[in-house]
């Protein structure tokens, strides 16, 4: 139901209390209220029009705890709890621990695979009252909050350097008039009375807040309520020096790295590590393509540093994908075979736990701290103070255009040499060629026209999907072979486990063969004259 919240600014609260008293509203004794706002890192609840908050009130008889989901339609859902929800900066809210029912289902459906994190907290002292008619029927609900202060929870996305939001101070008090269904007129009357009283008191029109005090608290600590949506695309010019343009793009990758770092180290959910690794791959790829643009010593030191970061995070990500994808992976097996493979899954889950610990240690290590600090220090240097390579002053469009054409040429040459006898590794190398080209197009392709760039990325994606599925089946089969071997080494797995494992390996090999059979058509579609011409036109426009 709609609410209107008046911002008390720094003014006295006396006028509000008078208005409420005239309306016959008896406010409850003031009680401390602590509210914590939750959302996923990428703001999925906010995007769905939902607000999730935990409330703790301290009354004379003890503490009360509730979880509230406030949506745009229908009444808020309020779940009373016997204890506060366990959560902290490094510990997501466990939706699975909530009682089964529509509230949990709605939150799980909306949050999907992302962790629900405490983002902002507000302390206040609250008095509430209900306006009723002569028959005692509720007409509107009023909440008066004073002594507002942001709480200790700080949002992880403050690590996002790409967005700096204006911080909004909290008002001295707020008063919220909650409209009840079928009673809009009563709420509006009360709102008008408050507006009139506050206009007199404050000498100007009273502020009506967008959202409520908790939303204001979230803004006050600089939280972007829309959540992380990836790094902001830098504004690039075709004619600017290539070093300046490349550094802008590298900075946006570094923003993504920073934003995902803590969540990956704490393993809040699988997607933080995934996001971090994407930024690592993009950075490595662009550094590799920046010969003659980025100074040699920076390029070689950072390529080495990011290679290390890629290596230490790789096993955990592979196992995350493997374990999370296990139900789909084993979907072709019958129930008995799937059950027989449970020891393999447990073995992989054990390795996953170890790999996650290794990621946490690596990301909190001195090496990692230096990596980030050195990299950011170079990225933050003023453009005039950065010595570039011999192509550093070339126009960005031309410098990158040349590299796009070189990457395309490499991809075409390598792709045309693949035949039925080519080993799987050759297709994997071709996939890497494709990634190099794709990252260049994603970072700079729009300089040659957004439409052309999007079309070209689409062509490339169709080929990459095929190569990706081929490689995934290769890696998964190999991982399974290794897991079965390790199980045999350590303990005797049952014959049914080995048989089911072999069946799954055979399934993966069949899937890989299907992708392989599909490859030539996919590559031929990519290698069409029209698709090549699209890329040539794009590069030509970039280089003008």
């Amino acid at each position: 139901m709609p609410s209107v919240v008046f911002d008390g600014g720094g003014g006295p609260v006396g006028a509000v209390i008078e208005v409420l008293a005239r309306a016959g509203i008896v406010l409850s004794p003031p009680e401390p209220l602590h509210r914590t706002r939750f959302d996923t890192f990428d703001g999925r609840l906010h995007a769905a029009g939902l607000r999730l908050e935990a409330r703790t009130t301290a009354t004379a008889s003890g503490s009360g705890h509730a979880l509230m989901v406030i949506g745009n339609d229908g009444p808020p859902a309020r779940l009373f709890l016997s204890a506060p929800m366990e959560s902290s900066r490094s510990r997501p809210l466990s939706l699975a621990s909530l009682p089964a029912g529509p509230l949990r289902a709605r939150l799980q459906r909306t949050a999907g695979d992302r962790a629900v994190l405490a983002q902002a907290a507000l302390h206040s002292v609250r008095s509430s009252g209900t306006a009723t008619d002569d028959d005692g029927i509720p007409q509107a609900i009023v909440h008066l909050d004073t002594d507002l202060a942001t709480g200790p929870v700080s949002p992880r996305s403050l690590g996002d350097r790409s967005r700096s939001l204006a911080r909004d101070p909290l008002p001295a008090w707020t008063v919220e008039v909650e409209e009840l269904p079928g009673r809009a007129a009563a709420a509006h009357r009360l709102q008008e009375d408050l507006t009139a009283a506050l206009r007199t008191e404050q000498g100007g029109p009273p502020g009506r807040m967008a959202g409520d005090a908790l939303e204001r608290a979230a803004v006050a600590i600089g939280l972007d309520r829309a959540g992380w949506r990836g790094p902001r695309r830098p504004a690039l010019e075709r004619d600017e020096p290539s070093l300046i343009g490349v550094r802008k793009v590298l900075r946006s990758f570094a923003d993504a790295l920073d934003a995902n770092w803590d969540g990956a180290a704490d393993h809040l959910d699988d997607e933080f590590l995934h996001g971090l690794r994407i930024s690592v791959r993009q950075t490595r790829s662009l550094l590799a393509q920046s010969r003659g643009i980025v100074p040699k010593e920076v390029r070689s030191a950072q390529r080495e540093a990011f290679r290390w970061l890629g290596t230490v995070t790789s096993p955990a990500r592979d196992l995350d994908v493997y374990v999370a994808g296990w139900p789909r992976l084993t979907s072709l097996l019958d129930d008995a075979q799937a059950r027989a493979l449970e020891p393999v899954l447990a073995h992989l889950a054990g390795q996953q736990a170890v790999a996650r610990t290794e990621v946490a240690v690596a990301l909190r290590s001195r090496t990692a701290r230096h990596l980030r600090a050195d990299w950011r220090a170079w990225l933050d240097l003023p453009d005039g103070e950065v010595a570039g390579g011999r192509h550093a002053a070339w126009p960005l469009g031309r410098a990158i255009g040349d590299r796009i054409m070189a990457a395309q040429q490499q991809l075409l040459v390598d792709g045309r040499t693949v035949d039925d006898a080519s080993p799987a590794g050759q297709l994997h190398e071709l996939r890497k060629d494709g990634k190099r080209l794709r990252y260049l197009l994603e970072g700079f392709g729009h300089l040659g026209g957004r439409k052309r760039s999007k079309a070209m990325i689409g062509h490339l994606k169709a080929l990459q999907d095929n190569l990706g599925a081929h490689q995934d089946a290769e890696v998964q089969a190999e991982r399974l072979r290794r897991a079965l071997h390790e199980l045999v080494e350590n303990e005797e797995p049952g014959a049914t486990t080995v048989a089911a494992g072999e069946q799954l390996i055979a399934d993966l090999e069949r899937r890989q063969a299907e992708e392989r059979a599909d490859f030539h058509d996919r590559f031929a579609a990519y290698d069409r004259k029209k698709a090549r011409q699209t890329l040539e036109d794009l590069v030509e426009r970039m280089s003008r």
Partner: protein
Amino acid sequence: MKVIAAASIKGGVGKTATAVNLAAEATRAGVRVLLWDLDPQGSATYLLRAEHHLSGGGVRGLVDPKAELAPHVRATSVPGLHVVPSDLSLRFLDRHLDAAGKPRRRIGTLLSPLAMAYDLVVLDCPPGASIGIESAFRATDLVVVPVVPTTLAVLTLSQLEEVVAGRSRRPALVAHLSMLDRRKRLQRETAEELRRRDDVLQTAIPNTTGVERMGPERAPVRAFAPRSPATDAYEQLWSEVAGRLW
């Protein structure tokens, strides 16, 4: 959105107490609940402190093919629990439904636009078996039947099963023990026997003053007796009902 109906052919068995307390407990459990008082007596409306009045022409306005339920929704004294209040004109519901096209679909049609706003609708049905009840059952996932553990009251359960049987869209039906007086041996024995049935829930609502006080207090039991046996029983009853719904 799930729909449950508190119903019985027999009157005075605790239907309204079941509807109001289940709705309040569900609200407390984080469920967005709308209670629709279909009984012209309006006891649920009274207990939840809403006006005993349907705006826009009473029951005739609800049977109109273009009618919407949302404008009739009201707040109650239980925060977050909404109600469609009763109105004396509901005593003519069957007559109006009879004159309308597809009368047994009417309640479902009225509820469907609210499917995104509420997780649960609780229908407080009047006693008996009428077109209005059949229309309610057609929209219902689970009929909850309060049964006083006496021979005659148990008979009404099988009668209600007959009403439900043979319908193309047939709700599940489950009974719970109501107004159990543990001092009476015959009631205790009947209750034990009933509990062995799959369609009878384990929770028994005791015949206590707590439930009787709902009238003067005009509130669900928890609101004025949060630590009473009746409150515990309704919380447990909700838990059992929720288990059948989700």
